[in-house]
């Protein structure tokens, strides 16, 4: 377990909600921000703010150094070969849409296949639905095992020589399942398909290594990993990115502009049209520094232990159903559940009255909710600042919820 002192880096956690100390268990939606990130943003706007890649003046140089420095931090963070493979974008959604539009349109034809799974977030479903509609390609879903995991047998059955793109989440935001991305990538490559990874729930919690995974594209968001909102990353293999046309056109991404023809800058800038997300990238860089100082392996371990503790304590509550893999070693730091016939919204409201923030709803995964045969669930998700005390407060809150609804029923 990590030290409880980590909490002290997060000023927002030091407050009362409805008369109780805040217990924040919604980090899978967005994480809180450490003071180091808040100060990096503040410092940038106070001292260095300027546009990048153009001015001759000193502030312009500082802003450019900060922005490009953040790119190098991201490169190292995911072990990419080159900063040319790191493109800053608004978030995972924009990154996945860029792959679908920039790579998909040029490489997918009628009758080809795009393969995803039943556990995907809407952001890794709809871009492919749209691409399939536009091109006449077939969108295929890999079925899940009963415990909410993927079996490589079913992966092999679904991916064929007609498959052009496989796009799968690394860690499920609902089930907590950690998918065997490296093995799936190998299978995709054997069939000549490219592998795209939605790493939104992985980047905050475990060490990413794009060279080891050998994936072709990988997308994640800054705000789930202690960084600001509005910044995310698209990683792509250099040869694929080079062959791709930009999706957005305008300033900042051009080389020469004529009246009827223009040419693009080199990678990565050809995909960064318009004034880039400078402060966001610098904030993300500060978040990466913060996470690396603690260590991604230590964070992952901490979350496994918390999830294990939570599952153990929560399963002692009668009538509480936990979804996803039962082995805490096979899942990330979140627990999705339902409590008897109390609707998750009602659970979340009673918990909120006790100062505990959880998510309730379909978690942007309606096809998965259908697979689970429920319209909504509640979810407690953990991060490096959570402790076993937080889990104890949750369990106490759930018992209170149960009693409360037993009384009023």
């Amino acid at each position, binding site marked *: 377990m990590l030290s409880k002192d980590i909490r002290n880096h997060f000023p927002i956690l030091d407050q009362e909600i409805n*008369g109780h100390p805040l217990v924040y268990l919604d980090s899978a939606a967005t994480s809180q921000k450490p003071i180091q990130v808040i100060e990096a943003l503040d410092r940038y706007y106070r001292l260095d703010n300027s546009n990048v890649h153009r001015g001759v003046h000193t502030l312009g140089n500082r802003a450019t150094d900060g922005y490009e420095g953040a790119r190098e931090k991201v490169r190292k963070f995911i072990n990419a070969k080159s900063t040319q493979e790191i493109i800053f974008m608004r978030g995972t959604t924009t990154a996945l849409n860029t792959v679908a539009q920039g790579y998909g349109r040029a490489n997918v034809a009628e009758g080809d296949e795009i393969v995803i799974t039943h556990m995907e977030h809407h952001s890794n479903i709809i871009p492919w639905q749209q691409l399939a509609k536009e091109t006449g390609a077939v969108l295929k879903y890999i079925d899940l095992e009963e415990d909410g995991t993927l079996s490589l047998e079913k992966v092999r059955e679904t991916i064929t020589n007609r498959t052009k793109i496989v796009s799968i989440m690394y860690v499920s935001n609902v089930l907590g399942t950690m998918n065997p991305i490296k093995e799936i990538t190998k299978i995709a490559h054997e069939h000549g398909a490219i592998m795209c990874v939605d790493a939104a729930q992985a980047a905050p919690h475990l060490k990413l290594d794009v060279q080891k995974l050998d994936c072709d594209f990988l997308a994640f968001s800054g705000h789930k990993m202690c960084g600001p909102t509005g910044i995310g990353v698209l990683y792509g293999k250099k040869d694929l990115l080079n062959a791709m046309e930009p999706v957005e056109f305008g300033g900042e991404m051009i080389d020469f502009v004529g009246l009827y023809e223009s040419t693009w800058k080199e990678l990565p800038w050809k995909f960064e049209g318009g004034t880039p997300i400078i402060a966001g990238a610098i904030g993300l860089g500060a978040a990466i520094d913060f996470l690396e100082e603690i260590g991604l392996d230590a964070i992952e371990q901490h979350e496994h232990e918390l999830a294990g503790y939570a599952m153990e304590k929560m399963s002692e509550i009668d009538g509480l159903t936990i979804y996803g893999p039962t082995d805490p070693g096979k899942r990330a730091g979140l627990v999705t559940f339902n409590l008897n016939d109390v609707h998750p*919204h*009602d659970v979340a*409201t009673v918990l909120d009255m006790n100062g505990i923030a959880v998510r309730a709803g379909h978690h942007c995964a309606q096809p998965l909710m259908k697979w689970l045969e429920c319209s*909504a669930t509640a979810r407690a998700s953990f991060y490096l600042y959570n402790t076993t005390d937080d889990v104890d407060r949750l369990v106490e809150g759930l018992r209170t919820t149960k009693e409360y609804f037993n009384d*009023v029923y």
Partner: protein
Amino acid sequence: MSTNKLDQLYRSVIMDHYKNPKNKGILEGGNVTIDMNNPTCGDVIHLTMNVEGDIVKDAKFEGEGCSISMASASMMTQMIKGKTTEEATKLAQTFSDMMLGKDLDESIDLDDLEALSGVAQFPARIKCATLSWKAMEKGISGESQ
């Protein structure tokens, strides 16, 4: 725990409607059908009504959602039966005002509906309470499917 505030939300009348909803089901021979959902939370309602002339003769609902949304749907179907479409629309507007914490027209009999007034203090739950009413208004205004 802030039990008082919670008790304002989950009044026994609401829980009664949730546990034993009135008019649950699909109206055979209904002439108005509306499906509506709340995309942010997954609540769904399937409302069937029989509107003859300007009278709402009957109404039933099927749906999935929290206690607030299902209780509200139960109350709504109970209250609009036998009312004119104009009265039903007026009631929907009064209910909407109640959710926004506005002063209400005291001439309107709110009956069980008054129990939902506590929802106004829970901004995240207002949409739960208004879903079935929006469906009803849409149905009456002739936008049925």
